[in-house]
């Protein structure tokens, strides 16, 4: 069973990455912080008695589910808002919450403005951030879990609820898409 210290150390080791993962997905820092907080509390309340070595995978699962819950709530909210305010229609016939659509509406605001005043390296990192955010959700999830969270293919597949082959495909596509987009921007890491 994980002790308080083990749990605390684990949460400290993953909180920033979890925040970025959530922020990539929901594109809103406040919502991302709420999601990470919810995920941490769920892990602690429900699985605080599990061995420390089981925590990373459990936390990833909880985090991904909490992100999905956010999108479900967002979809319901969007449906109700569009129902009551359909007089001021900007887009017709598309009530579904679309991550990419949402991204495009915010593209070029916070990240690009802040990166414009910083050194080249920071600019590159900011652009990389954007390019990762642009990846399709499943590809990004697989890529981040495999290469940032150090999960193996089987663990990633189990957390994502798909086959190991799909994980490999998602990772490969994400890697190629990132490499291509960074090359197009003339960026070197």
């Amino acid at each position, binding site marked *: 069973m994980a002790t308080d210290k083990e749990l605390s150390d684990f949460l400290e080791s993953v909180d920033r990455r979890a925040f970025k993962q959530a922020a990539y997905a929901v594109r809103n820092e406040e919502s991302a912080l709420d999601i990470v907080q919810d995920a941490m509390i769920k*892990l602690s309340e429900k699985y605080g008695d599990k061995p420390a070595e089981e925590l990373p995978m459990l936390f990833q699962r909880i985090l991904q589910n909490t992100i999905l819950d956010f999108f479900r709530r967002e979809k319901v909210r969007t449906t109700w808002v569009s129902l009551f305010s359909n007089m001021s229609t900007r887009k017709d016939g598309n009530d579904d919450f679309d991550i990419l659509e949402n991204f495009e509406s915010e593209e070029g605001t916070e990240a690009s403005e802040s990166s414009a005043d910083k050194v080249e390296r920071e600019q590159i990192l900011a652009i990389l951030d954007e390019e990762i955010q642009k990846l399709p959700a499943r590809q990004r999830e697989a890529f981040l879990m495999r290469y940032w969270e150090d999960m193996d293919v089987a663990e990633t597949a189990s957390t994502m609820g798909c086959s190991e082959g799909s994980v490999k495909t998602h990772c490969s596509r994400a890697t190629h898409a990132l490499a291509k987009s960074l090359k197009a921007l003339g960026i070197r890491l």
Partner: protein
Amino acid sequence: MKTTMNNSSPSSELEFAYKVRRALDERITELPESTTQRLAQARKMAIARKKPESLAFAVAPARRLAGAMSGGSSNPFDHSLGWLGRMGIAIPLLVLVLGAFGIYNMEQERRINDLADLDTAVLTDELPISAYLDHGFDSYLNKHGE
């Protein structure tokens, strides 16, 4: 370091992925103070609501028993309870086997006694009157009498 992957071999993919990973690690060290404070608060809240340990203690003996059964266990405390665990399983199993054997013997003896009673009744012609009132028995006797 170039980001481009000249060929798409798994090793070049992996190399690129790890470059991205390093960049991401670098990026998260620059999170704003307000964000890191909020994350620290979230951690504290989570720790304060940790699942109590008492439930784990309740489950522990069962786990030890399971460990003793499987024979392999990495927990050093399992060795001290190994004998107890094994006896705790072996004795009920022995009782169960002996009980089943006893019931089987009793049942067998009862069957033999029933058959013996029937044989004795036939030999001493002490058939119950109901046997003669049974049409099936009559037809059986007639058939065999012919």
